[in-house]
């Protein structure tokens, strides 16, 4: 549910009616930041200050219309009255959509029309707690989300590998403890052997002990590392698997709202960040904290006074760590940005190298590069300098503790109250603390990154599909291809329907041409048949069965699609043709290509059917790609065929070849075709003319021309256009 702020009490008390709508804006009428409230009731529209003072009020009966006038970075809501337009309220850009809705609502109330319902997208996406805007692709507030829950869920992924995790943990404890043994042994060498000048077997045994500990530590570290890698890779695999599966199950409308490129990053980077945290992070943190505790315990048992003394600079180190790491992070980001700018610059001028040369602008480009390059050098020095200086600084601070121990410890030794060995052991242990302490704040940073990565990943997994697959699918077998729209209404945003009460019955094997201006709802019509979206109202049936009761895989196996923008996957031409039927024989593939007028050009390619296409492969021309995709549809052998501007982006000769191919393809199949060039729809049994989401005319080409309605106008308009271009019209 979208979050709407409560109307302040002081305003609510003064209202005589229940408000239909209220919303707080973030600007005053004079453009200053401030809060004002818009309240709409059945009879009045009013604007209030937060203190409950009324700013203005209008009777709905005096309003003829309402609208928004968008500015840059903000806008204002206007009502038209008989006395002219009046500005009601102003707002910044973050509230544009909600006040857009408000204007529609006011207009509808004023005109007595059907009132729009607000969709979730129109409400400003603020976190109700901290007022920070939410990221556009997420419902959880990154600033004040509950980290614990996410952490817990993330760790759930480690569950299947419990035994290995426990093994790793035990080894970790052991290695940590064993690593603490050598300084103790050194102490024994100094105290029991060197000081006493006792050359007995003790020295040998202690050295053997030292060798043994380092051997054990090495062994255990290797084994633990191997286990870590194993668990890490497994968890990473599981995560990627889950994310990708959830992505594929999501409906198209989910992707409509988002850039698809960000998902590539999500699937890979976010799961990597999570893995890193779970394996390296968790192990490192627990290992290091264990070590810190153990070291302190040992040091205190040796000499608590000196230990306390050595701890004096510790707070300073933690402070240093919390100051330096964010600084490092920022400088890294700065450096990244200058690399980004430099790369963008190079990419830009190299892509446009023809233009650069044609206009003789090489020197300008070079000097632009020089500036960006200098910038990068500067940032490089800044970050690297800080990086280089950081660890010595930590060492210096830690050194203060060591100095203190040397001085006071040395005096204690001279007084005879402490053995030299203990002193050396204390100094060594102190040195071991340096590592964990200087990384403390960076660990917190990594953890928070991992948690936000996990958050994003879980969000994808938790998003329900808008077009859920039925649990009890009807068995449709091979359909005849009768398609019926019954009172279908649909809008990408619910209050703004793109299709309105569409009724159409299509017989099996019929070819329907969809005609209309852009934005008339043609593509939406087609998307509905594929069930990329579910109807808001009404039903679509295939052979009398509601498509919502057909399993999606069954449905799609009956539908073939040829789109304007053909997409070929990375792979050979043969693989692309056999996309929907991976077990197709070579003969089937060739036949399909032959019908699609593609066989001849494919054979003449150096690599024939094995030519690699797609992003990294051979570049086929638009017409060639189109024919490959037609072959793909032919081998799919669908009962229902959808052609969306299949010939829009090719020249006339190629178009003819594709037209031929298509006319062979549509034979015996129920076909829905969209084409901008009306001449390409000549073969259609019926033409359906859509206007603003409604069917306004249905009939054959001749019938529609005869009535001289909307279709006639479209044809005339196209004739005119062709004449301007000097192209003959094929009628």
């Amino acid at each position, binding site marked *: 549910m979208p979050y709407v702020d409560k109307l302040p009490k002081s305003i609510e008390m003064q209202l005589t009616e229940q408000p239909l709508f209220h919303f707080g804006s973030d600007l005053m009428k004079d453009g200053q930041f401030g809060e004002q409230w818009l309240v709409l009731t059945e009879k009045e529209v009013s604007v209030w200050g937060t203190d409950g003072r009324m700013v203005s009020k209008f009777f709905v009966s005096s309003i003829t219309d309402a609208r928004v006038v968008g500015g*840059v970075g903000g806008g204002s809501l206007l009502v038209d009255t008989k006395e002219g*337009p009046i*500005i009601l309220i102003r707002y910044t850009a*973050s509230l544009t959509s909600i006040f857009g809705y408000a204007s529609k609502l006011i207009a509808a109330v004023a005109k007595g029309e059907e009132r729009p319902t607000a969709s979730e997208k129109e409400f400003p996406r603020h976190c109700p707690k901290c007022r*920070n805007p939410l*990221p556009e692709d997420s419902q959880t507030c990154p*600033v004040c989300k509950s980290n614990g829950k996410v952490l817990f869920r993330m760790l759930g992924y480690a569950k299947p590998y419990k035994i290995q995790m426990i093994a790793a943990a035990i080894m970790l404890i052991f290695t940590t403890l064993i690593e603490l043994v050598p300084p103790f042994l050194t102490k024994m060498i100094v105290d029991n052997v060197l000081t006493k000048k006792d050359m007995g077997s003790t020295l040998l045994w202690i050295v053997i002990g030292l060798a043994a500990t380092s051997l054990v530590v090495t062994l255990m570290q290797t084994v633990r590392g191997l286990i870590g890698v194993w668990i890490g890779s497994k968890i990473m695999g599981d995560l990627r698997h889950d994310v990708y599966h959830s992505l594929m199950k999501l409906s198209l409308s989910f992707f409509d709202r988002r850039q698809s490129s960000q998902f590539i990053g999500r699937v890979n980077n976010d799961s990597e960040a999570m893995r890193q945290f779970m394996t390296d992070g968790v192990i490192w943190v627990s290992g290091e904290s264990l070590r810190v505790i153990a070291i302190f315990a040992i040091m205190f048992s040796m000499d608590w006074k000196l230990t306390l003394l050595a701890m004096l600079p510790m707070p300073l180190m933690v402070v240093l760590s919390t100051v330096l790491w964010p600084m490092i992070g920022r400088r890294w*980001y700065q450096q990244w940005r200058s690399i980004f700018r430099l790369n963008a610059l190079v990419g830009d001028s190299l892509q446009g190298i023809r233009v650069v040369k044609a206009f003789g602008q090489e020197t300008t480009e070079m000097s632009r590069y020089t500036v960006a390059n200098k910038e990068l050098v500067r940032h490089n020095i800044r970050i690297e300098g800080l990086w280089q200086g950081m660890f010595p600084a930590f060492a210096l601070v830690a050194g203060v503790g060591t100095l203190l121990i040397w001085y006071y410890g040395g005096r204690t030794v001279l007084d005879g109250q402490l053995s030299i060995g203990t002193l050396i052991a204390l100094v060594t242990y102190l040195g071991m603390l340096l590592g964990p302490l200087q990384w403390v704040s960076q660990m917190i940073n990594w953890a928070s990154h991992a948690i936000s990565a996990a958050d994003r990943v879980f969000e994808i997994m938790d998003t329900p599909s808008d077009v859920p697959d039925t649990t009890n699918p009807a068995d449709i077998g091979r359909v005849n291809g009768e398609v019926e729209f019954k009172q279908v209404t649909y809008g990408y945003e619910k209050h703004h329907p793109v299709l309105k009460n569409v009724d159409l019955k299509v017989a099996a094997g019929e070819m329907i041409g969809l005609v209309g201006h852009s934005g008339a709802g043609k593509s939406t019509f087609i998307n509905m048949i594929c069930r990329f979206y579910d109807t808001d109202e009404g039903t679509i049936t295939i052979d009398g069965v509601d498509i919502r009761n057909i399993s999606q895989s069954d449905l799609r196996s009956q539908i073939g699609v040829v789109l304007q923008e053909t997409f070929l996957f990375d792979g050979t031409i043969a693989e692309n043709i056999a996309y929907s039927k991976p077990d197709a024989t070579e003969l089937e593939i060739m036949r399909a290509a032959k019908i699609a007028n593609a066989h001849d050009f494919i054979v003449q390619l150096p690599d024939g059917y094995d030519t690699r296409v797609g992003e990294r492969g051979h570049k086929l021309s638009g017409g060639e790609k189109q024919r490959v995709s037609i072959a793909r549809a032919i081998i799919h052998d669908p009962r229902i065929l959808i052609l969306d501007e299949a010939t829009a982006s090719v020249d006339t000769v190629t178009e003819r070849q594709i037209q031929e191919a298509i006319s062979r393809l549509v034979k015996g199949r129920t076909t829905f075709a969209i084409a901008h060039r009306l001449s390409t729809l000549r073969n259609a049994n019926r033409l359906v003319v859509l206007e603003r989401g409604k069917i306004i005319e249905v009939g054959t080409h001749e019938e529609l021309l005869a009535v001289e309605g909307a279709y006639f106008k479209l044809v005339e308009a196209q004739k005119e256009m062709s004449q301007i271009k000097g192209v003959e019209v094929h009628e």
Partner: protein
Amino acid sequence: MSDPISVSDELKAQDKDPYEINIFEPGLISFSRSQGGVFQGVIEGKVYEELILFRIFPFQYNTQYISVRNSKSEEIGVIRDIDQLDEESRGEVDKELQLRYFLPVVTRIDSIKQKADMWIWELQTNLGQTRIVMRNLHEHMQYPSLYRIILTDVNGKRCEIRDYSTLDIQSRKKLKDVL
């Protein structure tokens, strides 16, 4: 609403080259504000109930090259410099531009913090205190000129640092960290 375009005007419009930019004679235009707060004016002898202003070079010129359009967003002409206008008109044009181009000028930076992948700026502007939240810096900071920075919020709200070299030392220091 009355339609400002009459037959005689259409004839007049035909005389003009439709591809020529119509730069107004300063004497032939005047602007005011209606009771309802709507910007309006009289242009070349014709009354417009509602006018919309566009900065043609919003980053380069604040008060020069202003496109004046009717409520359907059709261009009537261009004001070369609002200093040429009479006092009342100039005041109203200036005010309308400031309302339409909502771009508060930052007077002080209270803090710039990075919290959970979001950059949160607490700012004092000439229009009051505000907060700008960005997903990242490189896509939400623009540098139209050497010392000028435009900050854009994830929701499209914008603020301007007109000349960061004139900000106070504390603000400059905070800014320097993220530049």
